[in-house]
């Protein structure tokens, strides 16, 4: 239960309860305005009836030819609003818009290989691992979490236009690419 509405520039004045949390980065103004001036319909907010922001998603459409797709760049929910299926609702909207407005072939997102909870959540929503991107989250050497912490899974979900389901492959976890091969 929450209000789903577009992300607007002045939301930057109100997102502290989400962004003071350690897992959410606060970027420069230009970052948010870049997304809003490019793909405003892929940026939305979940808001509580009290007017407090609960979470938001920022996305974009990119890629050439059959790689044309919707991409989830930021997806975040404030600590006190977790476990309410908010992420799912925001992703659903992003998929709808990527499908109907942008006519993309799939939606994709990146997730740390060791973030089992998130991976399972996305799998539950129809995403599957398409490839593994080496050192996507910085190459500061192998940390406590091993390779799984710095590598990312590129997870994809096919949209209606992807008739051949080219964005799904069974052995995605074994296909490793370098960070420089992805946009």
């Amino acid at each position, binding site marked *: 239960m929450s209000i789903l*509405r577009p992300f607007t520039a002045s939301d930057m004045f109100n997102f502290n309860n989400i962004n003071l949390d350690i897992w959410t980065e606060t970027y420069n103004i230009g970052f948010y305005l870049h997304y809003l001036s490019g793909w405003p319909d892929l940026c939305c907010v979940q808001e509580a009836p009290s007017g407090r922001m609960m979470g938001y998603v920022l996305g974009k459409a990119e890629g050439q030819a059959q790689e044309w797709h919707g991409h989830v760049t930021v997806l975040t929910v404030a600590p006190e609003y977790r476990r309410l299926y908010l992420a799912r609702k925001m992703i659903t909207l992003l998929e709808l818009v990527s499908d109907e*407005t942008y006519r993309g072939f799939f939606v994709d997102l990146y997730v740390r290989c060791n973030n089992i909870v998130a991976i399972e959540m996305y799998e539950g929503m129809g995403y599957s691992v398409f490839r593994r991107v080496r050192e996507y989250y910085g190459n500061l050497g192998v940390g406590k979490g091993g390779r799984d912490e710095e590598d990312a899974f590129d997870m994809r979900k096919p949209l209606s236009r992807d008739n051949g389901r080219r964005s799904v492959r069974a052995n995605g976890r074994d296909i490793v690419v370098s960070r420089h091969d992805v946009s």
Partner: protein
Amino acid sequence: MSTALDRQIRPIYDALDTGSNKSAIVACNKLLKKHPKNALVQSLKALALVRSQKVEEALALCDEVLESKPTDDSTLNAMMHVLRGLGRHKDMIIMYEAAYKKQPANEELGAQTFFANIRANNWKSAQQVASKMYKQFQEERYLYWSVISSVLQANDRNTPAEMRTLLYKLALRLITSSSTPSYAHPDRFHLHLTILRELSEYDEAMTLLETPAGRNICETNLSCNEIRRDIMRLRGALEEEGKRAEQRIVEKNDRNWLEFLSVIDGVFSSLQDEPSNDAKEQCSSKLSNALELFTKISEQDGKKDRSGLLGLLELESRARKHGVSTDSTRMLHLMKQYFEAFGDKACCFEDLKPYLSLDGEDLAAWTDVLQASSSSLSTVNAVRRVINSHKLSRYNLSPSQLTVEAESSNASLYIKQYLEGLPLGDELPSTELQHVDDLAILAGNVFVNIWKMTGDVQYLYKAAVLLEFALGKSKQAFQMRLMLIRIYRLLGAPSAALEHYRLLNVKQVQNDTLSHFILSRCSTFSLASSGDLTYSTECLEASQIYISNSQETNDFVIRAFSAEKYSQIPQFITFEDWLENSLQRDITKLEYLRMRISHEAISSEVIDLELIELKFIFDRLHHDNRDFEILPNYQPKAVEDFNTQTLMFAKPEGHGWVWSFLKAYIKAFSQASDLDDVVEEKLLVGDRPQMSPDKRISLKERLSERLEEELAELTSDELSLMSYGDALADWLEPFHDHVRPPASVVLAEAAKQTELKTGIPLKGVDIVPQNGHVKKEEDTPPISEAPEALAKFFENMKTRFEDVKKATFPNEALHVATLTQEAFLLFVIETLRFKTPSVVKIHKLGNLVAKFKPIRSLAVGILKDMATSLENMSAQDGTSEKRKEFVDLCALECTEIDHDFIMNIAKKVTDSRKKVEEGVAKGMLKLCSTYEQ
């Protein structure tokens, strides 16, 4: 351009790109020897000069290039950066307009001319340029550019109200002239709907919305759907919208709360004003339908979604308001049901808050429900339920239930449960929040409330220790940090507060919304006078965001034009405006200024520069972006919220505070400065910022206006400072006006200085400088006695200081002492002009200057006494007795929170106090010796 020259220019670009402005200038000079009139090289040099802050030289070059009316891309581009750096948006327009006129077939130049107008908020000309471009290049987008320019002009606050409708009508005429319908593109459609909504052309809007394309857009585009919803509401079609929403909820499983609200609005749509019986009956049947629908949804969704049950609550709450509720027990029943179903979700309290205003039996029954709920802490869900039950019961506590005893036992219970539940999170990684955090936050709220009731400092000590302990267990609990910042500032321990603030890792735009936590009235704690620039630096760093905003945000407005994202343009402009005119920005500025004059030597340069900046600020219409909501508040509704309770000096500063201090300083600076309006106008480099529309009265009249509501935001001591400043300014005004050299002399001097620096005479100023001081025709105004108010102020502050220096924490003493110091510095500023012996001699002001002496020595004497007292306080705070006193008063020792832990906090607090008292005292003595004579 020859390739040889081209090759030589490339390194200049490289140098500029890497920020080596010096080598860029050297390279330019070399090339300019061979090609002295090359506009590109000249403009690149101007750019390098601007970037190395050599404004005067840059200006001269810049003017030369502009006169040559360049048309080639590279020169125009370089000049665009130069002019932006100088803030000369108007010149940028002139430059592009001239170029476009020379090459009317150049589409790129047309677009740049348009953008230059947009950057300068020159909507009308932008609209004309876009129209011209549309005619010439036949591109639909230019038509839309002209449409939104009209809309932006209509929305500009400088546009008179009667023009608004006309401009919207123009926009509508333009948009309907398009050959393709607006719904071909969601953002064009959005713009079209915005215009129709503004003009109340709802039928036409509906026609568009009902087209298949229109429907499709609203399905996927939230912004367009938002306007659609709005239009439905405005045309009173609530029932229709309710039905549509119901369909979405049932058929598409939409759980957007807005849809539920639409259903509810639809139910009560017939009950406007004085409803007839018919209307009431109609409503009743719709009510039972909605009841059925929401009940079904809530059963179907179970714990997966809160909408159904919350919908029922909202429905019942509105039915009660309209007097059509049929079941007096339903509200309570629903609340109970909600608490049972979602009591283990962190947001349960917030969800139920709007419905908590119960009374009589309902309240008693509800309290029973909460009390009967399990107090088990065995699982994470159980803990959340306990927390929610505490928050919900606490909210409704009545004043009679808020005794010190009752609150103390509440605190004990929360702490006991906190410690008991803590092991549940033993396995959590350090990046996670502890499940029991809110119990500590609740206890912190209670302690602050008891402090507020009793004034007993031990409760603030308890709050600090408990929150520090909990923060040690839950390192990312930013809410606790925010509470601690407030508490430490109340305790007069600024460095402890600052340490926590830095750990929050506030970044980018958060500097605007959150810096108030640390910068509000921070000159009270500033040690700038003794050379420690911690707070001045904080002010400068927090202000960086405003520079980024003025440099970057505009680029994205332009981007939104290029990408045709019209829905974003007004929002970007609003965002830029709110940040540019942020209230916190100028609160920070004023605090910085107050610290600056205590640190830097007070000179006419400082005074002139600050004066110009403050006068700019004085024309701003401020917007308050500060975030206070972020502070957790679990105080009962019968008492003040946590934010209000923990404000320093119990006075929130806002617009009134800013205006009061601005006026005081502009008054003092404009008297002390030689820059009058004429001079300022001539010497101004960039464009003037947009004036506030309120220009009825002169600056002088505005300065002397002291409004009641403005003064209400000041502490009593700040208020005394204002009266003192006014008295001082009124007394010295005639003498300043008499001595101040005429504009022609000031300008001649400025021209001379510029010529010395750049070798080129100052443009627009051609005055023959006169020799020596100009003696005015009229006589020196009669020397009057110093107003009694001045001496009285210092005497009063002395008494005030004696009163507050014994208080448990040093804040009041520091406040009084720093304000007395500020009054002394204002005196220094106001009398600076009369320090020059020749001025005094020529204007026969010896008698006036003689009257300064007693005030000066009185102030110095009192400041020195205050400094001595502060030093004594500081020595006291450094003793082990003080630490022991803290530990004894705190009395929170238990197996988990040991003696050493509390001792460390005690040390942190007392050390911080010691440092600030010592530093302020030292700085005061330094200022006394600097300005004693």
